[in-house]
């Protein structure tokens, strides 16, 4: 075997893939050739250097951003983005809604004809009815279709439709408290597209939203899939927004909402009992809670919920199976940790940590 032939085998040698015959020939040559031995050492060092490069980790929040981009944007979120476009944050958009509602009340009070109309109308609402009923519709079907329709119709048409319920006040309950309630509903919907949002938010027991959620989830998912995801993406690109901006906003919106009310894949996790139940003792509960959430995020998982159980905070997390050992190691550093694990083959472990001091 020549020196060239020998050196051509170095890569296969480094990958431990030589046939026994090749190996024997290589060894025989190396035994008598100092040059090739030196070359082999240098070659081996180079390969070792490259292999010492740490495998990269996707940035925290990557999974959420992909999921947000993969699914058509629900129309309330789309509307929220429209409303908040001239301003930096959502609360201003919500404030605008409040302002519109407030003005409507003032106008209504100022108009005796309208009050008379309201008194005459004891029957359910007329022309404005479809919009509010759509707002409270629990099904994902109408939402998804509305989303497309809204996108097609463009900003002005949708804005008109959404503001409409407030404009002809006679059609809706005229008292200011009711009006405020409506705005609250609208605000909730801006923050969250979940059909089961309300029930999830008002309950602190994990089982209640869990029972409510499953029937809605598969349907919503199917509907989201039935709308070509590319349409949403291209539409948003056409709007001149980058995906990154959209998803950043979307995640901000989600952060504004109560953790239990999170949509989509979250619901599935809530529906099942946790794979791991843990008790963490820490001097500062809120610091430990934040650290756990940050830790889950850093390991490619995230927070899925939060509740109070017997006066103690329970943080619900989704942790990738591959990062679970790391999660336990780092969580132990926060304080004494006890764990109860169930066998599961899921890739995303559901972890409920009770934090107390």
């Amino acid at each position, binding site marked *: 075997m020549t020196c060239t032939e020998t050196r051509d085998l170095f890569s296969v040698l480094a990958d431990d893939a030589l046939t026994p015959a090749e190996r024997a020939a290589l060894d025989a040559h190396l035994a008598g050739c100092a040059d090739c031995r030196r070359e082999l050492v240098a070659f081996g060092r*180079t390969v070792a250097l*490259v292999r010492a490069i740490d495998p990269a980790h996707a940035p925290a929040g990557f999974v959420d951003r992909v999921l947000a981009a993969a699914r058509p944007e629900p129309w309330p979120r789309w509307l929220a983005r429209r409303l908040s476009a001239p301003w930096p944050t959502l609360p201003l958009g919500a404030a605008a809604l409040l302002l519109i509602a407030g003005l409507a009340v003032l106008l209504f009070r100022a108009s005796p004809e309208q009050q008379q109309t309201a008194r005459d109308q004891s029957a359910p609402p007329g022309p404005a009815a479809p919009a509010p009923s759509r707002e409270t519709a629990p099904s994902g079907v109408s939402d998804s279709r509305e989303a497309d329709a809204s996108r097609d119709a463009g900003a002005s048409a949708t804005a008109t439709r959404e503001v409409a319920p407030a404009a002809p006040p006679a059609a809706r309950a005229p008292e200011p408290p009711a009006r405020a309630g409506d705005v609250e509903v609208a605000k909730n919907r801006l923050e969250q597209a979940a059909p089961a949002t309300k029930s999830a938010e008002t309950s602190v027991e994990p089982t209640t939203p869990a029972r409510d959620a499953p029937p809605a989830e598969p349907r919503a998912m199917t509907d989201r899939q039935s709308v070509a995801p590319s349409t949403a993406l291209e539409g948003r690109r056409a709007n001149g927004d980058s995906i990154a901006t959209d998803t950043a906003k979307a995640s901000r919106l989600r952060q504004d909402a109560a953790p239990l009310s999170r949509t989509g894949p979250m619901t599935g996790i809530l529906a099942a009992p946790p794979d791991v139940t843990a008790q963490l003792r820490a001097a500062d509960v809120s610091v430990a809670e934040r650290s756990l959430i940050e830790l889950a995020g850093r390991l490619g998982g995230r927070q899925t919920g939060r509740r109070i159980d017997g006066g103690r905070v329970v943080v619900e997390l989704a942790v990738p199976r591959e990062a679970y050992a790391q999660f336990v190691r780092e969580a132990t550093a926060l304080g004494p940790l006890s764990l109860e694990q169930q066998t599961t083959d899921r890739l995303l472990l559901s972890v409920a940590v009770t934090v107390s001091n």
Partner: protein
Amino acid sequence: MREALGADPPGLLERLRAGDARAFEELVIAYQHRVFGVALRMLGSRAEAEEIAQEVFLRAYRAIGEFRGEARLGTWLYGIASRLCLNRLASPDRRLARGDEALADVAAPTPDAAIAAERAELDAALRAAIAGLPEDRRLVLVLRDVEGLSYEEIAETLAIDPGTVRSRLHRARLQLKEKLERFA
């Protein structure tokens, strides 16, 4: 080097095809680091790598119905990532001043300043040497020595024969060795 790719998570493909709500999420979770990793090492910018990695999963999401299961999910995703990276690298408007971040996290921190400086110099040289490889060789090198794929998996990922994998990899390593000669 990353741990071996291994078999697909059991049942995941079937659940993806059936439209299981959580299956796609599990796919992203299971392969996010691998897909992001190959994009980062090829493109050198974390922002650009994330953009490409997102696109990989979105394409997979749209195309899962057409995936016939001849390859594994892992090599399929690596394949999409590889194509998107090569396309991106070939695009004329891509800025040249990329690559600084590609290996930014190569070195483990060391307490000794002199060793750290030496290590930093070596890392810089390694970074430059890898960035200087022809793209097809760099891709094979990254898939093998950083991402830990076998020759067969790389052949499956890139739809080339194992002999081509072997020769590209060998040339890439030889080229690196020459560039890093002075550190020997």
